[in-house]
């Protein structure tokens, strides 16, 4: 079992930590160097965390658990109008990104109103490609409840809803979790109180993702998503020249590869692991709804009978 961790510390000698994690069988997912500081997002085997902790103390860095690491989150706004953007939606997306998640913003075509809101089939499928959907709704209790009754139809992933009133999750139909004190805010979230609300949102999403992890652990994937990422990086040279942010985005039980499906899907399907199996035996390589990208979903152990 791998634990998502974040290391923040000086750039000096940080490569020692990277090597340690890789030697332990963990994965470095993202490395950001900002002047003399480095932020590492990584997956560490749960039993070896104390060793990594000792090393990070030695380097005078800080090691924290970052439950959002390795997940792809959709932040959904009713539309892409001034009512919702740029504040709040972007703030939420950016904040979750800082916590280690990859966020994609989705603006619905007809998501407005409590009676007239709709979700198109395309939007539904696109949102379902993520790990969690965060719906950013407005100010009024009645509207949030009415809207929730039908807007999330067909969405199979956990749904986190935000809004102004303090409601209990049970009161919001179809929602996995609800976070209050947001609402339609038209300024940059920077006051201490607002930042605390964002912290709470990150916490709630972390909890939701942990539940997903527990669920996945019951029937673990045949191949760990970071392993898929590593194999693609090693086998497909063109990924180096890919200019998309995070060309291979990790998800809870798969990855999204930001390369054209038609050109690369066969190459990816035929990647051979050292264990002797090919990618198509342990994962499904699908066309993504997002542009012409590739979506890879790892097959569960119950389907293949083995895990590597």
């Amino acid at each position, binding site marked *: 079992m791998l634990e998502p961790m974040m290391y923040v510390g000086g750039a000096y000698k940080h490569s020692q930590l990277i090597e340690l994690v890789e030697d332990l069988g963990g994965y470095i997912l993202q490395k950001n160097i900002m002047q003399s500081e480095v932020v590492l997002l990584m997956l560490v085997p749960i039993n070896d965390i104390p060793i990594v902790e000792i090393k990070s103390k030695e380097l005078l860095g800080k090691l924290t658990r970052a439950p959002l690491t390795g997940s792809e989150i959709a932040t959904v706004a*009713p*539309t892409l*109008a*001034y*009512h919702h953007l740029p504040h709040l939606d972007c703030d939420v997306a950016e904040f979750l990104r800082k916590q280690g998640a990859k966020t994609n913003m989705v603006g619905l075509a007809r998501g*407005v*109103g*409590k*009676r*007239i*809101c709709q979700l198109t089939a395309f939007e539904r499928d696109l949102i379902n490609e993520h790990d969690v959907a965060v719906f950013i709704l*407005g*100010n*009024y*209790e*009645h*509207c949030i409840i009415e809207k929730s009754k039908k807007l999330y139809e067909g969405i199979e992933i956990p749904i986190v809803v935000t809004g*102004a*009133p*303090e409601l209990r999750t049970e009161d919001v139909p179809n929602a996995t979790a609800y976070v209050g004190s947001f*609402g*339609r*805010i*038209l*300024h940059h979230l920077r006051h201490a109180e607002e930042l605390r609300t964002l912290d709470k949102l990150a916490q709630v999403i972390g909890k939701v993702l942990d539940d997903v992890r527990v669920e996945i652990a019951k029937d673990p994937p045949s191949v760990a998503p970071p392993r898929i990422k590593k194999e693609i990086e090693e086998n497909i040279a063109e990924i180096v020249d890919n200019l998309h942010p995070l060309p291979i985005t990790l998800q809870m039980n798969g990855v999204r590869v930001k390369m054209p499906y038609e050109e690369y899907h066969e190459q990816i399907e035929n990647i051979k692991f050292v264990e002797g199996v090919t990618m198509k035996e342990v994962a499904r390589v699908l066309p993504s709804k997002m542009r012409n990208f590739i979506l890879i979903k790892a097959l569960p152990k119950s389907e293949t009978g083995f895990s590597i």
Partner: protein
Amino acid sequence: MEQLETFIVECPDATGAKTTRSLILDTLSDLSLSRVIGRLKVYMDPVEPVFIFAALLRLGSPSIKIKDFARVDMGALGKDEVKIEIEKEMFTIKLLNKLWAKYGKENIEQPDRKIIIVKTDPIKDLDMLRELVVEEPQQEVLDRLIDAIALRIIPEGFRVRKHELSSTHVLFVASEDTLKPEWLAKGQEILESLRREENA
């Protein structure tokens, strides 16, 4: 007169009223409109659903014409030209832009900082040029106001709307469903109450 002498957001949903209030303040300050609105009252009922926005306006200076800041005369004798002698340079850039758009750059000369020559028939155009509007502060403010109310403040789902707009007041009634006559009447009533406060 003070800005925002009355600012009331009425809503059965207390949290909703609080956030609506803050979002209106944010929008007004974003578009620098807080000085424009004298009294403002909003009524919102999410259950009905209806959103009424009524405000009394304090628009600033009226529109500015060329004659307000320059002398417009015939040009040199025997030539088809109009001479504009500028007294306040503040509006020169806007004036030049207007003239360029109207006559083309080749027909506008500026031999001196404060003198603009327009190559056109003076008999025909002189009076028109004197009255040419160079800046319309009121119109600009009203445009921004409509942007604020219709595109930012009123909830997006409320697409059925009826509005009144004059230089002294603005009234918006919006809903997701067909507008009911009693909502329109309520809008008028709110506007009247604001007027009574103003006159008291």
